[in-house]
Every structure is written in C-alpha cells, then in structure tokens.
C-alpha cells in the first residue's frame, strides 16, 4: 500500500509548481453489479476548476460521489480504486470517512436546504453538529459564507426565515454557503446550475471564479459553455469511461479524441 502510494507524485515533475490536491486512481464504480464508472484516473489541481462533462448517464455524478465516499452510501453500490487527498488514501481503513467529508464539500444537483431549518441554521448546522459552540464564531462564519456564496445581501434581513422560502437559485447558493461553512479544502459541485435561470447561473459562475482562489473545485456540468467559462481543466466522460482529460481550451478547441470532438461540437448528448 505505502509503496504504491509513494509512486504517485503530489507534484508534477514537468511543471514545477503544479500541486495536485486530489488524485483519483483507477476508480470503478457500480450499482447492483452494473458498472457505471470504468477505471477512471484523474488528477485535480489545487486552486483550479476542473469540469466533468459528458452526456447524461455517463457516470459523472457517480464518479463525483466516489471522491467524498458518498457512493458507498447507496445500497448495493460497490467501488474499487483509490482517492488520494493530499497524498492520503481516503479509502484506507485508517481514515474515518466522516473526517474526510469535512474536508471535501459537496453541492448537489437539486438544491436541498434542510427543510426544517432557517437560512441561518442551514449554514450554521454543519458547524454546530460538528461541535462548534461559540456563537460569535458561528455568526462570523455564517455571514462570511453567505457573502462568499453572494447571497448575503439578499437574505441578511431575514436570516430566521426558513431556507425553503428562498427561490431555487437562492436555495442553491444557500447550499453552497452551507458546504463552505465547514471550511472544506475541495468543493465538489454536481450540475449546480442545471435547475437555475441564467441570472442565478451567472451568479454561481462568478462565485466559482472567486472561490477558485482558495479551493480545489470539481464541477459536473452538461452545459459546455459553462465548462468553457468556468474551468481550467475538463474531463470528458462517455459511457463510464474518461475519454479525454486536459486543459479546457485544448478539449474544446483541439480535442484529440473523435467522440470528444463530436460531443463538444454538439453532435450528440
């Protein structure tokens, strides 16, 4: 185990200062014995946005859920492979998956604020339930995260209102603030804007640009314009395979693979 681990360089030799925050190695995942992700390996750069694109059903969500050990919560789901966070295997027996989920935040495709909680509590609950008691700290974090998610100005007057009383786009930004509140290092976003109108989408995209300065962001999207707008790297998945992975510019302007070319030109998907 240790031997293979040291083989994976955290830093790329070619470009000296490229640091990989998260490395997925030979990830295969299945549901009820039906394989959904086939032997996917990817390296995610720190302080960069990596986009995962591909037609629906190709395994993007499944792969993303392998990165924070959410996949194993699905019934009859199995997984092989490794995920290294700062060089440490998430799937090693020695590490508590809970601790790692605190380092890897997740935003789901459908906004899912906790229905019984207020706007404030939605953001605060990650801290409270993880043992933070100091009201002043919680207040600060809630405000800070709502600002980062560019929601603060819209909700600062009504923090006690239920989270569900917000519009869809606001709910999604609330979920982003909630994910940020536990101070993760990596942020996984599964089509965060797919249910949103163009203005809300733009807000989220702007926010991603801002967050990139501090986080490693992995975003699933089936909107190719969005991938070109927000990401530095893009991986194209098709039928469970990672077909091509490279700089976003290269994937969209100069794809090496035929299927990738067809997909980015909008010929299917």
């Amino acid at each position: 185990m240790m031997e293979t681990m040291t083989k994976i360089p955290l830093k790329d030799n070619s470009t000296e200062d490229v640091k990989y925050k998260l490395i997925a190695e030979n990830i295969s995942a299945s549901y009820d014995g039906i394989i959904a992700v086939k032997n996917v390996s990817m390296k995610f750069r720190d302080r960069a946005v990596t986009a995962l694109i591909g037609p629906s059903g190709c395994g993007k969500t499944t792969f993303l859920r392998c990165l924070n050990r959410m996949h194993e919560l699905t019934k009859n789901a199995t997984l092989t492979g490794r995920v290294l966070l700062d060089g440490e295997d998430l799937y090693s027996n020695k590490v508590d998956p809970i601790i790692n989920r605190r380092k890897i935040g997740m935003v789901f495709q459908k906004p899912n604020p906790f229905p019984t909680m207020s706007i404030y509590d939605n953001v605060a609950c990650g801290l409270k339930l993880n043992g933070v008691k100091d009201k002043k700290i919680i207040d600060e974090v809630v405000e800070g995260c709502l600002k980062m998610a560019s929601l603060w100005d819209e909700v600062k007057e009504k923090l006690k209102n239920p989270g569900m009383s917000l519009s869809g786009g606001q709910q999604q930004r609330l979920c982003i603030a909630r994910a940020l509140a536990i101070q993760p290092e990596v942020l996984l976003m599964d089509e965060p804007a797919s249910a949103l109108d163009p203005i809300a989408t733009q807000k989220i995209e702007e926010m991603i640009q801002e967050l990139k300065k501090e986080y490693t962001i992995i975003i699933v999207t089936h909107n190719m314009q969005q991938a070109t707008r927000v990401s530095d790297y893009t991986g194209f998945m098709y039928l469970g395979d990672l077909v091509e992975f490279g700089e976003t510019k290269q994937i969209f302007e100069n794809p090496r693979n035929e299927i990738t070319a067809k997909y980015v030109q909008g010929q299917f998907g």
Partner: protein
Amino acid sequence: MITVEQRTEFRKHFRYNVGRRLVLDKVVKCMVFLCVVVAIVPLVAILVNVFSNGAAALSWNFLTQIPGAVGSDDPGGIGPAIQGTLVLIGLSSLIGVPVGVMGGIFLSEYGNNRYGRTVRFFNDVLAEFPTIVIGVFTFVLIVLTIGNFSVWAGSFALSIIMLPIIMRTTEESLKLVPVTYREAGYALGIRRWRVVFTIVLSGAKSGLVTGILLAVARIAGETAPLVFTILGSSQFIQGLDGPVDALPLRIWRLSSLPYDSSVVQGWGAAFVLIILVLSINIGVRYLFLRRKGQAMLKFKKLGSMS
C-alpha cells in the same frame, strides 16, 4: 415517428367528449364530498348524542369530586377518573413514546436486515393483539408479582399498546424524509446518528406527532386492560403503586348501574373523555407543529401520516 394523420387521430381522441369528462369530474368531486359527509355524520352524531345525554351531569363538582355512595342522593363526581386517566396517559407516554420512537428509528435507519424484519413482524403482531390479552399478561407479570393493582401496572399495559403504533408510524414517517436531506447531512461530515436525530427526525416531526397522538387517543379509551391492572377506585391517587380510577372504567361502571342519575353521569364522563382526548390532540399539535414557515407546509404534507 407519429405521422401527421395519426396525430390528428390522437387529437380527436384526446379532445373527444370534453363535456362528458367535465361532468365526470363533477360527479367524482360530489362523491368524494359525500364520502366525507358520511364519515363525519356519525362522528357529529356521537358527539351530539353523548353531550345531550350527559349534559345534565356536567358541573364543576362532577369534574372535581369523588364519586358518591352508590344509590345515594349525592351522586358525586368523576374527579379521580379524570386524574387517573391523565396520570395514566402521562406515564404510559413517558414509557411508550421514547421506546417507540427509538424502535421506529431502528426499523427505518438500521432495520434493513434480518433483525429489522423480525422486529417488524413481531411489532405488527403486537399491534393486532387483543388488548385484553395485554391486560392479562400485565396482571400475571406485575400485579401478581407485586401483589396489588397499581398505576404502574396500568401504565405498563397501556405503553405496550402504544408501542407498535408509535414504532410503525415513526418508521413510516422517517422513511418519507427524502434521501437527499440525509445525503446533504453526510456530505457535511455529520455522523449518521446525528443526521438521524437532527435532520431526519425534525423533518419527520409532524408524522411522529400524529402517530403519538393516535396512540394516546387509542389508550385513553382502553378499558379491558385496565380492569386487570388498575382495578378502579373511588379515591384520588394515593401512590403510583396503588389502584387508580380511569375514565373508561368509570364510564363502564356508571352505565351499568341501575340508577338513571348514574347513567347520565356515564354519558357525562364519556363526553369528558372525548373532550380530553380532543384537547390533548389540539394542544400537542399546537405546541409541536405551530412554528413552521409556509415553505414547510409542502414538506409537512410529505411527512404527515394522516
């Protein structure tokens, strides 16, 4: 592909008989409304009947005094029975609610295996048990062991009757909480039991409360198991290890006495019991379910069992 001709054909079909459909819609609406009326009529009839028969007995003394000697001029009241029923409901809930809710949590969150299925099976059997059997069981287990009828024995028997109802409704309402909320919790690195107790349980609150109230209403009217466990009494409670009166028992006794005044008192006691259960129901709902934003309503419907 559907051809243009086919499409025209379909359209004709779909738009055919719009008038008849509207009529049908009205007919179904009327039928549903009628069914509601049919369901409500007996309820109102019972309430009116009970009230009109028992109204003559209702007075402050009736509610607070101990029963008079049988056949005497002063019929007394049903104070001990009201007190007893309240204490019995309280004590049985104290035992039945936590155990039932925990059991429901177990079934819903950890019960997807052989143990869960076994527990679920026996729980369902218990729910179907004639309550008199539970009374006899408690009689043998507690009353005979301790040597006398007691509040404890009654509460124990009633809590056993509550258990399966609460367990099952808890399980069902927890299962109705969408998995996305649990996942949101897990993704925040919150431990499983905490996700259950904070996020899932609060989402299932209205279903839980409904189940508990159902159980309370059920035990409030139970008579058979009480005959074997509390005996009945014409005094206020002396201690939890002594006998106690309860409204259903008192109703039964009063209505089987050969005096008109007693029978009227029986009706009065029945009315008091109905009002008591109704007030508990409304009170608990108000306490636990009032502070909800409008957006919660949608979710409330999801989680509600009724």
